[in-house]
């Protein structure tokens, strides 16, 4: 999950960075020695998520004696923070975000410690379907703490107004339906896809490629998108054409995914989001204080080229940086944070008061069962069905270690293609060249 969690994205990052340094300093003062890693009574947790409710964090402190300094930084900025701190061999947190896309990189650089000695992989894997995403060469680099995956959401009211009662399952059907929806609801551009140069644009391309029935890279990390008949090429063409034809608002050239959800879909300026996040309906669109489409939106099957397409899974994980000062405390926290009941609570088991804002779905199937039993989150069973039947990893063999450079090439070139600065063929060629260079050097 990327820009969904970019709250106050760039401006906030600055303040958060200061907070992180302050928190780190505070933690450091209570734990002057890195050798006695369990002696400190506080830990700093740096993730791209709002903190769990204070009462529950206080409960954790009461149970373990560990105080949690929670630092919420926008996803893109957090990755920079991690790279800067780890390259400088500097402490910045005891537990931090390990995104699915970063697993290969962290294993290769050794920036995060393997968690195998603290967590039993074989016993957890049956309850955590996406645990394998965080394992590289047998090393567990992070513990998944959600089951985020890309979905398509639609405003059912807007579609009904246009006479679309059953959602199209093909992309061509989807395009014509959206044109009707736009006209019926007075929307010049009814579809939200982000085109800002941010991670969400890369992820959307992987999603659209999956919807066309393929992957962008092969299991040996070779480009699979260079042929015009390939799913990746078709996906990019479809996205750019959607932008150029006006199906997507022109303003989206500088709109990140989270901005799109909150300022476009939640305000009913668009009727559908093509690369939305599982959890948006409950955590964004159904929040009365900030949404004008409460109880109007729903998850729909992602359209594909000939029928329902696949959904790309992008779970978030949490791990322990190499320079953590309180490893024992961090392990206790991760166990608590990924616990069956707590996972269900973050998603709404005990009602809205304990929900972690923007939290998509639990990482554990056992948590899903608790939610389904309680019946107090919308479409839990539909999401569970999508997760089990349609969610797939964007890269068949896990994210490549050079993912960050690859993603930068993807987002900048698709952005340039949409802005009319280069053609689709040029964008594809530039991304493929980057992949080939990275493969040959890495």
């Amino acid at each position, binding site marked *: 999950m990327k820009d969904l969690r970019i709250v106050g994205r760039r401006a906030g990052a600055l303040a958060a960075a200061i907070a992180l340094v302050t928190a780190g300093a505070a933690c450091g003062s209570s734990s002057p020695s890195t050798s006695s890693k369990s002696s400190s009574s506080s830990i700093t947790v740096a993730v791209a998520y709002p903190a769990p409710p204070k009462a529950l964090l206080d409960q954790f402190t009461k149970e373990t004696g560990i105080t949690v300094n929670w630092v919420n930084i926008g996803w893109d900025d957090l990755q920079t923070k991690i790279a800067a701190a780890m390259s400088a061999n500097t402490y910045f947190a005891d537990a931090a975000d390990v995104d699915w896309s970063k697993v290969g990189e962290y294993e290769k*650089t050794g920036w995060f410690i393997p968690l195998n000695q603290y967590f039993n992989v074989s016993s957890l894997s049956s309850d955590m379907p996406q645990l394998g995403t965080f394992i590289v060469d047998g090393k567990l680099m992070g513990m998944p703490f959600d089951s985020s995956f890309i979905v398509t959401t639609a405003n059912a009211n807007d579609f009904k107004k246009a006479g679309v009662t059953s959602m199209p399952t093909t992309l061509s059907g989807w395009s014509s339906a959206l044109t009707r929806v736009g006209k019926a609801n007075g929307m010049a551009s009814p579809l939200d896809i982000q085109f800002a*140069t941010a991670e969400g644009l890369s992820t959307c391309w992987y999603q659209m490629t999956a919807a066309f029935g393929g992957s962008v890279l092969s299991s040996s990390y070779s480009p699979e998108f260079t042929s015009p008949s390939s799913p990746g090429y078709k996906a990019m063409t479809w996205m750019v054409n959607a932008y150029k034809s006006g199906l997507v608002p022109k303003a989206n050239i500088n709109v990140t995914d989270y901005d799109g959800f909150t300022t476009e879909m939640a305000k009913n300026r668009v009727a559908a989001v093509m690369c939305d996040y599982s959890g948006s309906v409950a955590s964004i669109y159904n929040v009365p204080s900030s949404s004008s489409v409460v109880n109007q939106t729903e998850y729909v099957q992602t359209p594909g080229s000939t029928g329902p397409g696949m959904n790309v899974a992008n779970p978030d994980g949490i791990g322990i940086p190499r320079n953590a000062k309180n490893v024992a405390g961090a392990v206790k926290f991760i166990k608590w944070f990924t616990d069956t009941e707590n996972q269900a609570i973050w998603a709404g088991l005990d009602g809205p008061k304990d929900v972690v804002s923007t939290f998509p779905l639990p990482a554990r199937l056992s948590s899903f069962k608790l939610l389904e039993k309680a019946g107090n989150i919308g479409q839990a069973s539909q999401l569970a069905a999508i997760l089990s039947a349609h969610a797939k990893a964007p890269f068949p063999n896990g994210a490549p270690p050079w993912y*960050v*450079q690859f993603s*930068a090439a993807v987002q*900048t070139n698709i952005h340039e293609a949409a*802005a009319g600065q280069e053609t689709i063929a040029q964008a594809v060629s530039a991304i493929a060249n980057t992949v080939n260079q990275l493969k040959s050097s890495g």
Partner: protein
Amino acid sequence: MSTRLRRQLLPYILVSPLLVFIGALSFVPTVDTTVEAFFRVMPLDPPTAFTGVGNFRALFDNPVVITSWVNTAVYVAIGVVASVVLGTAIAVALRRRFRFRGVVLALVILPWALPSVVEAVIWSWIYNPTFGVLNSALKSLHAIGGYHVWLGLDRWLTIALIEVVQVWQITPLSALIIMAALQSISPDLYEAARVDGAGPLASFRRISLPLIRPAVAVAAVEALVLSLNIFDQVYILNGIAPLGSSVMLQTYVTTFEDLNFGGGYALSLLVTAATALLSMGMLALLYRRTEGAVT
């Protein structure tokens, strides 16, 4: 230790904390960056190895980096000219005392006092194509038919609008520097000129301009340095898109997005060299002795 020796050592003792501070925070990192610029430093592809000018060659082979240099040249040209011209105009306007001058001065200084991140966020709302003030105002004035996407589609428009934000921020400092110089000019000179029949324009051209030239030089160099190092405004308003990318943004991308620290160090070194050379050139051009400048 003799009293004389102690007296001789005292200045050194007094400045030593500052020297240590500057050395630790400026000199050491500069030396480190200079050395590392000649090494291949890539955490994802170890080991670190000496590469000579390899990092620099790679930078000049990278079209995105070249684009960012061209963009930066435009940022600098607009930034220096606009901030000095506007700064001089504001300084002349605020030179004489008038009612509420203090309030006006405070308002003029405000953009300079605000963090550049905050300003860029404010301007991102002004430029917002869906509900931004710019579109709304222009449409109310019937200057545009429909709402426009201002940033991200046209390279030169994007650069110009980003630089507007930068100029808005740095002009107050130029105005203050030039105003201080204006206020130091003896009123007798203007009085003498008036007696000789010189009008306001002639007085400005013949008296003010020559005497404020050193201040203009300082303001221009300040604008040059800030424009050459423009980052926050570009990053917030246009992301990492190459279209409006500046060389400092590209340094960030090379270092933290590509994790190519050697390349980032090399680019930083080039920016530092460019800043030093251009600043010296500008000072040499503008900062002339003022003695006898009044003709």
